[in-house]
C-alpha cells in the first residue's frame, strides 16, 4: 500500500506555498516517512523552523509546530528541549536561515550536542526573498545580488556541523529521495545533535538564473555529482573534484546536553539537601 502522508498532514493547510519543482516538498515527504519509521508520537514531537520557503514546513504537519524568526529555529528549539527533554525536537530550515543569520545558533547547538535533529534544506539560494546569494551559493554562481558572479567562498554545511561538534552528520539530495528518510530517521534515533543536509533545488530563483533549462537538469546535477561515502573512499582527489559526498559523514558518541544538565540538577539538589 502506498504510504499515507495524510496521517501526518494538517487537514485544510494544503496546498503549500512551494513552487512546482521545488525540492522542499520532497524533503518534507522524507521527513514525514522518517517520523513514521521512528514511530514518533505527535503530541510529544515539536517541529521548529526559522523563516524562508523551507521554514514554512511546520505549518503543514500535525505536531507541536513553531515557526519562529529568521535564523532562530535552533535557539527556540534549544529552549523547548531544555525545558522538556522528553520531547523529540526537530528543526528545519533553509541554508540561508541556518548558516547566515542563524549561523551562531547553529554552531552552538552543534557544540552543545543537544539532542535534536536539524534538517537543513540546502538549495544554495535565498528562495523566499527572490534569489539573493546565500553562504551556500557556489562561488561564481548568479544570484539577484551577484549578477557578475558570486565572489564569496561557499560554506560546506556538513563540514561546518562536524567542526562545530554535531555528533551525527549526514548529507543527501532531493534526487535520492528514499535516502532522505533513512538518514533523518537515523538522526532522530541518534542521541545528540544530528544534522542532515538535504541538497535540493530552487528552480524559480536559482535554476532559471543559472541556466538550468528544467528541474530535471537540476536533479541530474544532484544525481551526477553525489558520491556515496563508501565509493569515495576508493576514489582519487581528482576524481572527487566538484563532487560531494552523501550518506553518513560523521558519527560519534559524546555526552548529550540535557543529560549533562540533569547531572547539574542532581548535584545542585544533593548540595541543597
Amino acid at each position, binding site marked *: 500500500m502506498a504510504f499515507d502522508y495524510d496521517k501526518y498532514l494538517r487537514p485544510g493547510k494544503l496546498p503549500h506555498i512551494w513552487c512546482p519543482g521545488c525540492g522542499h516538498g520532497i524533503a518534507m515527504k522524507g521527513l514525514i516517512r522518517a517520523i513514521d519509521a521512528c514511530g514518533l508520537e505527535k*503530541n510529544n514531537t515539536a517541529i521548529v523552523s526559522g523563516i524562508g520557503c523551507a521554514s514554512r514546513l511546520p505549518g503543514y504537519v500535525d505536531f507541536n509546530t*513553531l515557526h519562529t524568526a529568521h535564523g532562530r529555529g535552533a*535557539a527556540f528549539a534549544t*529552549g523547548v528541549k531544555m525545558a522538556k527533554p522528553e520531547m523529540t525536537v526537530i528543526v528545519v530550515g533553509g541554508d540561508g536561515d541556518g548558516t547566515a543569520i542563524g549561523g551562531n*545558533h547553529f554552531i552552538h547547538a552543534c557544540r552543545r550536542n543537544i539532542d535534536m535533529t536539524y534538517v537543513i534544506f540546502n538549495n544554495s539560494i535565498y528562495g523566499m526573498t527572490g534569489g539573493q546569494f546565500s553562504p551556500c551559493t557556489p562561488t561564481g554562481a548568479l544570484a539577484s545580488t551577484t549578477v557578475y558572479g558570486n565572489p564569496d567562498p561557499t560554506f560546506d554545511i556538513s563540514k561546518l556541523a562536524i567542526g562545530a561538534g554535531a555528533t551525527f552528520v549526514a548529507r543527501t539530495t532531493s534526487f535520492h529521495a528514499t535516502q532522505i528518510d533513512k538518514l533523518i530517521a537515523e538522526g532522530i534515533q541518534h542521541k545528540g545533535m544530528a544534522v542532515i543536509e538535504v541538497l535540493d533545488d530552487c528552480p524559480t530563483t536559482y535554476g532559471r538564473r543559472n541556466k538550468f533549462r528544467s528541474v530535471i537538469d537540476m536533479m541530474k546535477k544532484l544525481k551526477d555529482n553525489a558520491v556515496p561515502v563508501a565509493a569515495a573512499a576508493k576514489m582519487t582527489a581528482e576524481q572527487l573534484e566538484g563532487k560531494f559526498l552523501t550518506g553518513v559523514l560523521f558519527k560519534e558518541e559524546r555526552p548529550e546536553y540535557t543529560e549533562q544538565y540533569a547531572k547539574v540538577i542532581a548535584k*545542585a539538589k544533593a548540595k541543597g539537601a
Partner: protein
Amino acid sequence: MAKKVALLQGNEACAQGALYAGCTFFGGYPITPSTEVAEVLSIELPKIGGKFIQMEDEIGAMASVIGASLTGAKVLTATSGPGVSLKQELIGYACIAEVPCVIINVMRGGPSTGMPTGPGQSDVQQAKWGTHGDHAAIALVPASCQEIFSETVRAFNLAEKYRMPVQVLYDEIVGHSRERIEFPEPGDLEVIDRAAPSVSPEKYKPFDPSFGDVPPLAAFGTDYRFHVTGLNKAADGFPTTKANLVDDEQRRQVRKVDAATDIELNEEYLTEDAEVIIFAYGSTSRSARYAVNEMRKEGIKVGLFRPITLWPFPEKRIAALAQQAKAIVVAEMNLGQMVLEVERVAKGACQISFLGRVDGDPINPGQIMEKVKEVK
C-alpha cells in the same frame, strides 16, 4: 514568626522574586550591570529542578525563553543596553505570538556600549517602541530591592495573565545597591499561572477570541498540539492576510492591555495639596523624595508622583495632576524620554519642566530642588 530578612543587591532580589513567582527557566547572555541575576539563577534553578542556560547571544537567549515558555515553563531573561536592542525582534515575536515571558533590563547609558557600569534610564521609550509594529507593552520600574522582588513577581503574574512579554526596568544604582529585604512567605504575594484550555484538544484554538481578549495557552508536549508563528494569523494560529482577521487580531492584542485595570501602579507622596509635582522613577525617585522632604520644611508645596508601571503610561492620573498643579517637573537619567509622555497627556494644562542627566552620575536632590524652585 519573624519574617526572613537579608541584605541583598537589587539583582539578587530580582532572582529571588523570580523564584518566588515560580520561574523554572532562565536563558541569558552576560552583560553588566545585569549579570548577577543570571549568576544567582544558575545556582538556584537546578536546586528546584529548573533550567538555566547561557546562550550564545541575547537573541538566542530570548529565543530560548520563548521556546521554553511554550512548554508551559515560567521564563526569565535578564540583560542591559545593547542586549535589549538585540532582543527586540523576538520581543515583538513574543507580543504577536502571545507568549508569556519576563525580561529584566538593568539600564545603563547608551547608545551602543555607552557606560557599562554607569546608570541610565534611557531605555524607557525602547521598552515601548523598541520592536517594530503595533503592539501593547507592559514595563515596570521598581525603585528599591524590596520592590524589585515584588515587581518581578508582579511581572510574572502580568506576563502569565495577559500572555505577553513584560519588561522590568531598573537602573544600575537600584540593581547594584544592597538593601535590607524582607522575604514574603509563600502566599503573601499573589502568584498567577497562565490559564489552561478547558476545551477538548480537537476544539482548541490558541488565539480564539471567543475566550476573551486573552485566550488560554496550552503547552507543547501535552494533549494539545498547535501551531505558533510570528506571522499575522487567524484564531487557529495559522497565517492569514485576510484584512478583517489581521485587524481584529492586532486590535485585540493592544486592547487586552488597554482595557486592563490591574497593571497600573503608582505611588504618590504629598501630592494632595502640591503645586509642583515631581515625576520621577527608579533611583531618581529616591532623590526626588529627599528633595520633597527638604522643600516641605521650607514650606514649598511640592509632591512626588512615582510610576511603578511605566507602560502603559498612567495617563488619567497625570492628566488630573496637570489640572491641579502649577507645574510638573520631570527628572530622569536621559535627555528627555518620559517627559514627552507627561507633556502629551498634560495637554498644556500646566508648566512642564525637565531635568535630565546622562553623565553617569545620579540625579541628586539638590539638582531637583533647584529645578523646582525655577517654577514660577
